[in-house]
């Protein structure tokens, strides 16, 4: 059963219309990236998945349940949302308590809690911080605690809002590998505008481009992320690899431009240069 977003509109109390008629389906095992400029409505949209935001018009169904008829606590069991800023999420006295918090709320037995917390501390390299207050950790470490505290209850849908913000390249690589390892069993949704981070994923995600509260386009990364017209409407800059190919085509070389992978671009360029 999927998450189905049907004709969703949302206006904040101050009148700002953040979502203006969004339709989207996240199927079981899907890997979806939502991209677009600041203020496009990306964060508002993912907050409708777990009922933090309820549509002013339209509806969101999570595994067949209308989010207006369920509590956030019920929805959170299925939809784990990791916030952009870990400071908005972390509040416990120690990392261990932080990670155990939701499990206690969901009523897991203590033995099970201990087992899962140990797993999460190990999986995220946080064992040495077990008794440390999360708020004294570095930005990258806090992000890992935030992620661990959600993944520990194994939500069916994992939603990450701007997970690469303020992370260096090595941390981004680790995050990418970790997400790749989670794919298949769960649906993963990532909100980001880090286009070079997105194109390095294997498998590549399905891409949803948003602007001004609407979905501009959705489809394969190779098609959407090489289309300059669409990208500029989403305030994105074309990744470097297709940008090179596009410029070569303008110079009269016979090259394909729907390529994101550097190795593939090498082959395309070499065969076109040799072919002349």
């Amino acid at each position, binding site marked *: 059963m999927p998450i189905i977003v049907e004709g969703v509109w949302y206006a904040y109390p101050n009148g700002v219309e953040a979502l203006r008629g969004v339709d989207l389906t996240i199927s079981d095992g899907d890997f979806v990236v939502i991209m677009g*400029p*600041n*203020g496009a409505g990306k964060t508002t949209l993912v907050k409708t998945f777990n009922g933090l935001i309820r549509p002013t018009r339209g509806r969101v169904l999570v595994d067949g349940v209308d989010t207006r008829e369920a509590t956030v606590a019920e929805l959170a069991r299925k939809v784990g949302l990791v916030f952009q800023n870990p400071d908005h999420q972390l509040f416990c006295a120690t990392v261990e308590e932080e990670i155990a918090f939701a499990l206690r709320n969901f009523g897991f037995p203590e033995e099970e809690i201990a087992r899962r917390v140990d797993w999460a501390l190990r999986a995220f390299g946080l064992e040495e911080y077990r008794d440390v207050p999360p708020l004294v950790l*570095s*930005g*990258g470490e806090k992000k890992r605690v935030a992620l661990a505290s959600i993944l520990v209850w194994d939500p069916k849908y994992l939603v990450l809002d701007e997970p690469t*913000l*303020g*992370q*260096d*390249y*090595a*941390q*981004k*690589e680790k995050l990418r590998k970790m997400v790749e390892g989670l794919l298949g069993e769960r649906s993963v949704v990532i909100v980001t*505008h880090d*286009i*070079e981070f997105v194109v390095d994923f294997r498998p590549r995600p399905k891409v949803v481009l948003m602007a001004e509260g609407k979905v501009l386009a959705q489809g394969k990364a190779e098609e959407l992320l090489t289309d300059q017209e669409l990208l*500029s409407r989403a*305030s*994105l*800059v074309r*990744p*470097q*690899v297709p*940008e*090179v190919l596009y*410029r*070569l085509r*303008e*110079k009269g*070389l016979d090259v394909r431009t729907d390529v994101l992978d*550097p*190795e593939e*671009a*090498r*082959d395309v*360029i*070499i065969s*076109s*240069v040799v072919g*002349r």
Partner: protein
Amino acid sequence: MEGGMGIIEVEGLRFTYSGSRRPALDGIDLSIRKGEFVILTGPSGCGKTTFCRCLNGLIPHFYPGDFEGRVVVAGLDTREHEIWELAQHVGLVFQNPENQLFCLTVEADVAFGPENLGLPRDEIRRRVDWALKATGMWELRDRAPHELSGGQQQRAAIASVLAMEPDILVLDEPTSFLDPAGAAELISLISDLNKSLGMTVVLVEHRLDLASAFSDRVIIMDRGRVALDGPPEEVLTDPRASGLGIGIPKVVKLYELLADGGLKLPKVPLSPPELADLVAEVA
């Protein structure tokens, strides 16, 4: 600046924050020439931000700790001159503009620094107008900073620093909170200030794909030391760079892949148009 002396001279710099056992900076020697555009990068915790704080005197004057060595900016030894004095030579722009803007209008924020220097009214007016125009913020001068987009806020933060007429602009990950189009615009503004005003730029940045084409020099720091330092073409193709966890731009990777595949290009490209030009030349 007389005979060969850089606008920034750092000698044997070591700094350990109070309460920390590990030095944040562990022996840095470098010289930056007037008008250079330097990118400073390296993994989180490598000491980049601490180094920036040393350039405008926040270290040692504001952050307590154990300071060794010497930092001389625009001829002033930072130990012997106070922060307000150094601020007239070194403007520091932070990652999050919300930490830097606090007035009710952009114009008031930009005027804040010069007013605190006790400058004459006409001089304040001249500097504020110039800084607003140089950053493209003139039309938005009456707006409240919180009403602006992230990119506009960051431009306002740069304007407020420019109004001090510094020789050196130090920017600590200024594009982190911006979307790609906003980040590209900001980097191009910084490059304009460097080229048209000859302003020395030290830019702390992880997104080398965006910034390296504008730079004269890339410095990679690791564990409080300088690990690599040189022109971007050399540093980004140094095998040690990827070992340090640096995001090598895709155009540089593609250049290396083409060379492995038998297509050797005459120089290392730093941007897609540059790579396309090089390929078109040999095709």
